[in-house]
């Protein structure tokens, strides 16, 4: 027993010694060695918030394929499974591993100041994708790549306005329920805000709002309870495709029909993201309008990194381009903030061409 303790003691001491000397003196040597090996490539650490939806998977896939080894990158990926603590842990790990760039798809907006400061102190540029971060000092991150969620919401509302006007359905006869995304996510905030404003401006009847947490199961449950509470729902505003699937299921289970003809008792589904499965439902007429939320952030992030590598200063905010798809062709384009956005009529061919 005593021998054992002695042995353990020795191991502990060895380890501490390795850690100590490893930390203080030889690090420079190691760093020096690193510099001599040029083929190592640019190391990019990506902290993804989870894999909750098809959109997220496409987003991850875009990053992975952009920062591949063939293109001279070393890509470290961490899936935080919806926990901010995991993301903070991952970023700290990236800092300790001395990656060249950190890409962060944050799960919530707040609570990033400390860890981003650490990254800044270590001289590692942080690029935020998708959702925004809310930090006291905007210099803590280098750039942000993502979608203009408020604009997405506005597009959807404008389309609904144009469509119902075309069909001459009075505004007070439009009864909307909103299945929100995860509360606090940028997409939820933007899309909800646009709907609320439009409902107020146009006089729509916004019956209820509840979070479906971006998942099919939760949305089905929420929609089920909405249907039991209100019998006059004719528009469902789903803040992502997975929620739309859940809502469609709940509506069909309740013996009602989904579709664009709200005058004939159908319930109209509006959705965001335009994933492959979501667009398939548009093609089948189940989802009336699907606003694209482009997940292919990889190339944008790569161009920012390239700018930084050559010593340039990238734009602080980079929006990705986004389309909108409808079952119906009666509304061909809408205008938001003075810009004209075309509504794409979805066909098999359009669907086949898409990569996600």
């Amino acid at each position, binding site marked *: 027993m005593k021998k054992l303790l002695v042995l353990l003691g020795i191991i502990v001491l060895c380890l501490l010694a390795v850690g100590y000397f490893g930390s203080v003196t030889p690090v420079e040597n190691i760093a020096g060695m690193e510099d001599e090996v040029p083929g190592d490539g640019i190391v990019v650490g990506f902290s993804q918030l989870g894999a909750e939806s098809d959109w997220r998977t496409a987003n991850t896939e875009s990053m992975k394929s952009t920062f591949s080894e063939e293109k001279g990158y070393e890509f470290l990926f961490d899936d935080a499974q919806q926990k901010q603590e995991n993301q903070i842990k991952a970023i700290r790990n990236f800092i300790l591993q001395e990656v060249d760039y950190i890409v962060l798809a944050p799960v919530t907006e707040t609570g990033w100041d400390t860890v981003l400061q650490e990254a800044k102190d270590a001289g590692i540029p942080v690029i935020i994708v998708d959702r925004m971060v809310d930090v006291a000092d905007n210099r803590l991150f280098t750039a942000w790549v993502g979608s203009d969620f408020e604009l997405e919401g506005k597009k959807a509302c404008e389309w609904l306005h144009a469509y119902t006007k075309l069909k001459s359905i009075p505004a007070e006869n439009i009864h909307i329920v909103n299945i929100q995304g995860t509360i606090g996510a940028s997409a939820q905030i933007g899309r909800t805000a646009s709907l609320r404003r439009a409902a107020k401006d146009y006089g729509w009847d916004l019956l209820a709002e509840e979070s479906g947490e971006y998942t099919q199961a939760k949305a089905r449950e929420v929609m089920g309870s909405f249907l039991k509470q209100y019998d006059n729902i004719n528009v469902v505003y789903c803040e992502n495709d997975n929620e739309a699937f859940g809502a469609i299921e709940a509506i*069909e*289970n309740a013996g009602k029909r989904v579709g664009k003809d709200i005058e004939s008792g159908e319930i109209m589904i509006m959705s965001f993201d335009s994933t492959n499965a979501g667009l398939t439902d548009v093609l089948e007429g189940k989802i009336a309008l699907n606003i694209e939320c482009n997940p292919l952030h990889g190339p944008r992030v790569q161009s920012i990194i390239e700018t930084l590598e050559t010593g340039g200063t990238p734009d602080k905010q980079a929006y990705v381009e986004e389309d909108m798809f409808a079952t119906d062709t009666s509304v061909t384009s809408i205008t938001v903030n003075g810009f004209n956005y075309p509504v794409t009529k979805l066909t098999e061919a359009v669907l086949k061409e898409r990569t996600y």
Partner: protein
Amino acid sequence: MQTKKANKLTVSELFGKLLSQQIFIPIAALLLLAIFNLIADPSFYKITYGINSAGAPVLSGYLMTILDYGSELAILAVGMTLVTAASGGQDISVGATIAIAGSVILRVLCGTNSRPDTLQAPIIVAFLVACVVAMIFGAFNGVLVAYFKIQPMVATLILFTAGRSIAAWINNNELPIISDPVFSYFGGFIPGIPIPTPFFIAAAVVAVAALALKFTNLGLYTQAVGINESSSRLNGLNPAFIKFLSFVILGLCVAVAALIKVSRLSSINYSVIAKDIEMDAILAVALGGNALSGGKFNLTASIMGAYVIQFLTTTLYKFNVQSDALPAYKAVVVIFLVVISSSVVRDYLRNIGSKISKKGVA
């Protein structure tokens, strides 16, 4: 003589006898819930006949929801009861193995493409493969419990941790979607039949289990092993094998439940599918009045227990309790039930009862 004696039973004795019956607990709970709903809102019992989007006639209403969604739980309760009886422990990996079995079904149906236009294999083949896989995982648990003598809860903790990862790995972390309408029949409605299919599947599983228990010695042996392992060994049984077998049977139940689960969605979400179902399944067994330490069991009571839980869940939903807050209410019910059925409390009540009757006599 006997009939005379039976006639002479006083009301209190009858009540006492009823109390001692195992099936009393779930029935009492069910009655309680039923009466509560009747008073609170009789529309709970309304069943409407309608046409769903596929154009098939369906019955809908809260009672149908209970029959529908209670089915997976009832199926699992069958296997869980056997495992509990034989091993004196519970399998906490059923939710994770449902994810595995569900993933296998989708994998076989989809082949390498996650969005197939046509099924790559007949559904029955996919189901059978899933059965085999689930039974292998059941066997893995069984070996650890029966031959390595690891406590069931701990042994199944392994698959509980790894199961969902394995499930995701089987499909390369993709989320396949089956578009074939036939596949959705298992978790929905078969055209022309207005009662949800899961109920029929559950009924079939229960029937098979009941027949197996009636015509084989499985039930007897299981109880013997659960009550006293060494004496059953002395009587020529092989306790290890019986335990092993109970886990394999649970594996089969898991595969059936998985078929229903993935059919409901025509897809899968590895981290959410059948989440916490293991807790509900164990609860069903406990509600059925079965001793969680093993031994005697009553399958009917467990199945009743499963539907009681679904009844409770649906009732709570009806009163707009959020799904995340649901467990708190369930917990209160569970504690209430286990407290009144605990031997200490029962003895105490019996003592009080006899004291009162003695006083009455004096």
